[in-house]
C-alpha cells in the first residue's frame, strides 16, 4: 500500500465555507484523519439553504432534491476525506463532546468570527485543559486581535481589503475582483504548511500552540511588490488590465468560436520576432521601432489591434500550439468544459472522480502539488450531514451507547436541519 504522509494525525475540524474546509481537505488527501463538526441548527454555509430558492446554489443537474445540504456542490468540492459529526455547541453536552474529541486530536481548526469559540467555552485555554499539547488554528477574517477582529468577510471582500483588487481592473477603469474567491484557496494552501510546522514543533518540544491566522494578511502577502513600491517609492498601483508591468505586448485576444480568447505574453525581443513570424508579418519583426520593449510598449494599442486581427478568425487551441512551438507563451482562456478536456490536466490526472451517495458521480479538482511517494488521493466522498456522529462519538470520544442515546434524545446530535429555524448570522 502506498504510504500516506499524514497517517496518524487527527484533526478536529470546526471550519466552514471555503478556506478552512479546503485546508482540512488537503490534510485529508494527504492521509490525516479529519473529523468535521457541524450543527443541524446552523449548517456550513457551503451546504446552502435548507429550502433553497429556485436557481440558487450548485446542485447536480440544478436539482436540490429532498436533502439539498447533502447535494451542494460547494460543500462536496471541499469536504472529501472527512468524517462528519453533528454537535450543538450552544448546548453544554455538545461542548463536552467536542472537548472529549479534542482530547484525542492533534489539531483543532476553526473559522468562526473571532471570539465565538471562546463564547462556546472552546477557546484555546479551554482546550488546553483537556489536552495540554493541543494545536489550535483559527482562520479568521482579520485575526484574533485588533479593532476589526470581529469583522466578517467573504473572499470577494477580502480581495478588496487586502490590496489585490486595487490593481485588478480594465485599464483606466474601476478596480474589481476575481471571478472566484481567490483568497480562500490561498489561505487554504498556506495554512496546511503552518499546521504541519506546528506539529513538527510539538513533536520536538512537547508544546502545542495557538495559531492566529488573518485571511486578510495572508492575501496581502501575495501582493508583496505592490506594497514595496509604496513603502520604497510612495507609488500607489492602479489597474493595468491584461498588460504586463515590464514585457510587451501582453494581452487577451479574441479567437473564433463562442467567447473564445487566447492569452499571449511576449517576454523578449526574440519572442516578438517569433510572434511576428507566426503571424505571417515578418515586416513587424524588422520594424526597428518595435524591435525593443520600449518601442513595443509605446505602440501597445496598435500591436493589440494587430494581434487581435490575426487571432479573431483562428482556432484558439491551434493558435496556442503554434505559438508555443515557436517559443511564445500563449494559453487559451479555458472555459468550464475545456478544463476537463485540457490535455495537460488530463494527462496528469488532475481531476478525481468521486461517487457520492446523494449527489452522484462527478469529477473534482485535486491538489496543487504531487508527491512522488505519498501521492495521497480521494479516499471518501464529502460526508452526509451527521453521517459519522455515532461511530466517532463511540470510537474517538469513547462514549457508551447510553451516552450517545442521551445526546440524541437531547437533540444535541440532530442531523435534521428542517427541525430548526434558520439562525441569524
Amino acid at each position: 500500500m502506498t504510504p500516506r504522509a499524514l497517517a496518524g494525525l487527527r484533526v478536529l475540524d470546526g471550519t466552514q465555507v471555503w478556506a478552512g474546509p479546503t485546508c482540512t481537505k488537503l490534510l485529508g488527501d494527504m492521509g490525516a484523519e479529519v473529523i468535521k463538526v457541524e450543527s443541524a441548527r446552523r449548517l456550513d454555509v457551503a451546504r446552502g439553504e435548507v429550502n433553497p430558492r429556485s436557481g440558487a446554489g450548485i446542485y447536480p443537474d440544478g436539482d436540490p432534491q429532498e436533502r439539498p445540504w447533502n447535494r451542494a456542490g460547494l460543500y462536496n468540492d471541499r469536504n472529501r476525506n472527512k468524517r462528519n459529526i453533528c454537535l450543538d455547541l450552544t448546548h453544554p453536552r455538545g461542548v463536552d463532546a467536542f472537548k472529549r474529541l479534542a482530547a484525542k486530536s492533534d489539531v483543532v481548526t476553526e473559522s468562526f468570527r473571532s471570539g465565538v469559540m471562546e463564547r462556546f467555552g472552546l477557546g484555546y485555554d479551554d482546550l488546553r485543559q483537556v489536552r495540554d499539547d493541543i494545536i489550535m488554528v483559527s482562520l479568521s477574517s482579520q485575526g484574533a486581535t485588533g479593532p476589526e477582529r470581529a469583522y466578517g468577510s467573504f473572499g470577494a471582500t477580502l480581495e478588496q481589503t487586502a490590496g489585490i483588487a486595487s490593481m485588478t481592473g480594465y485599464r483606466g477603469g474601476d478596480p474589481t475582483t476575481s471571478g472566484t474567491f481567490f483568497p480562500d484557496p490561498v489561505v487554504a494552501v498556506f495554512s496546511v504548511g503552518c499546521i504541519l510546522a506546528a506539529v513538527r514543533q510539538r513533536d520536538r518540544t512537547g508544546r502545542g500552540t495557538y495559531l492566529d491566522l488573518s485571511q486578510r494578511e495572508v492575501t496581502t502577502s501575495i501582493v508583496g511588490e505592490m506594497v514595496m513600491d509604496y513603502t520604497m517609492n510612495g507609488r500607489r498601483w492602479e489597474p493595468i488590465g491584461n498588460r504586463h508591468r515590464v514585457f510587451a505586448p501582453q494581452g487577451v485576444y479574441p479567437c473564433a468560436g463562442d467567447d473564445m480568447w487566447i492569452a499571449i505574453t511576449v517576454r523578449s525581443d526574440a519572442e516578438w520576432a517569433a510572434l511576428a513570424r507566426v503571424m505571417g508579418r515578418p515586416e513587424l519583426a524588422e520594424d526597428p521601432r518595435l524591435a525593443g520593449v520600449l518601442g513595443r510598449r509605446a505602440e501597445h494599442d496598435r500591436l493589440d489591434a494587430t494581434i487581435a486581427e490575426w487571432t479573431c478568425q483562428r482556432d484558439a487551441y491551434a493558435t496556442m500550439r503554434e505559438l508555443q512551438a515557436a517559443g511564445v507563451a500563449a494559453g487559451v482562456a479555458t472555459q468550464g468544459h475545456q478544463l476537463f478536456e485540457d490535455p495537460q490536466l488530463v494527462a496528469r490526472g488532475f481531476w478525481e472522480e468521486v461517487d457520492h451517495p446523494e449527489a452522484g458521480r462527478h469529477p473534482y479538482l485535486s491538489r496543487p502539488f504531487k508527491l512522488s511517494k505519498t501521492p495521497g488521493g480521494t479516499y471518501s466522498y464529502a460526508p452526509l450531514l451527521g453521517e459519522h456522529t455515532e461511530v466517532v462519538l463511540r470510537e474517538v470520544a469513547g462514549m457508551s451507547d447510553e451516552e450517545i442515546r442521551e445526546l440524541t434524545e437531547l437533540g444535541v446530535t440532530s442531523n435534521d436541519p428542517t427541525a430548526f429555524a434558520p439562525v441569524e448570522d
Partner: protein
Amino acid sequence: MTDRAVPLEGVKVLELAEGVAGPFAGKMMGAMGADVIKVEPPGRGDAARAFPPFLDDAPHPETSGLFLYLNTNKRGVTLDLAHPSGRELARRLVGWADVIVESSAPGRLAEWGLGYEAIAPLNPGAILVSVTPFGQDGPYRDYQSSDLVALALGGLLYITGDPDREPLKLGGQPSEYFAGLAAFSAAMVALHHRDAGGEGQHVDVSVLEGIATAQMYAGLNYAYLHENRRRQNAFAPMFRAKDGHVGVMYRQPNWPTFCEMIGHPELVRDERFRDVAARRDHAGELNAIVAEWMASQPKEELYHRAQAARMPFGYICDARDLIESPQYGARGYFQEIDHPLAGRHLYPGMPIHWGHERWELHGAPLLGAHNAEVYGGLGVSGEELAVLRACGAI
C-alpha cells in the same frame, strides 16, 4: 521580551529557485526558523533582482522591491550549476539539505546531474520540490508561460471581468505566489512523512494546477450543471464612494439594516427589491439609488459602519490604505526590515501569529554575501574558494 517563533528550527533548505514561486516558499520556511541557503547564478543573480519596483526607480541588483520582499531570512551564495566545478559544490549542498526547492525547466536539473534520481542516493532523506509552470510531465511540460497564461489555462481568467468584455487578469502575480504557498505546504507534508520514518521524495508543483485548484467555480459549474460559468458581475458589487471604492455585501436578514443605512428605509416595503431574486431583476434601479447615496460617503467610514451592523462590506485598499490600516497597525503586520543597500522599509510581515512568540525577519542577502561562510562550513578552504571564483563557478 517574547521568544522568537522557530517552528522549523533545524530544517535545512537549499533554494535553487528564482523568480517568485520557489523563493516565496523559501521565504516562508526561513521566517519559520529554517536555515535557508539561496543559490544564485554568479553575475546576474536571481531573475527577480532585475525586476521593478526599484528603490527610487533606480535599477540596481540589490534594490528590487520584488527581490527584497521574496528573499528575507535567507543566506545567499553564488554558484553556476552549468559549470562542472559549480555542480561539485552543489552536490555537497544537496547532501546538507533537508529540503531543496528548485524552479528550472523540467529535465534541466537531471542534465546537470542533480535530478531526483541523482539526489536520492546522495541524500535519501532529501525532499526535492520542483516548481514549474506546468509540472514535470505531460504535453505542456515544455510550454512557455507567464502569470497571464497560467490564469488563462487554469480557468480563472475566463470567469474574471465584465461579461461583455475580454476576460480580465487578476492583478499582480497571483499564480506564482499561489504556487509558492503550495510548494511550502507540500514541503511540510513531505518533511512530516520523512520525520515520521518515511523517505525523502520528489514534490512536483505545477503553477497551472494551482490556478486550476483556485478557480473552483468553472469546474464545479460544469461538473454539476453542465454549463460553463461565464464572467459575471462582481460578487460584492463595488460602488464609488467619496474617496475610493466600497464593496457592498449583505444577506437577506440585513436588508432592512441596509435600507436604513442608505437613508431609504421605505425600500424595505418596495416590491421591486423584496428578495434576492427581485433585487437581481431590478439591479439597475437599486444600484442607481445606492450609487447616488454612496458618492458622498467616505469609504472607510462606510466600511466600519456596515461591519458594525454585521454586513461584511469591503473597501478597496491600495498600498497606502494597507499601510495606514488600523487593523494592520494593531497587529503589527508590517515590519520594518533593514538592508545594507536598500535601507529600512516596511515589508508585509508574517500573516499568522504563532502563540505568544514573535517572528524575526531579516533583510534579503546581497549577491553571494555568504559564500565564504557557507562554503567554509562545507569544508571548502579559502584557497579553493579563490580558485572557484576565478573559474567563474561561484
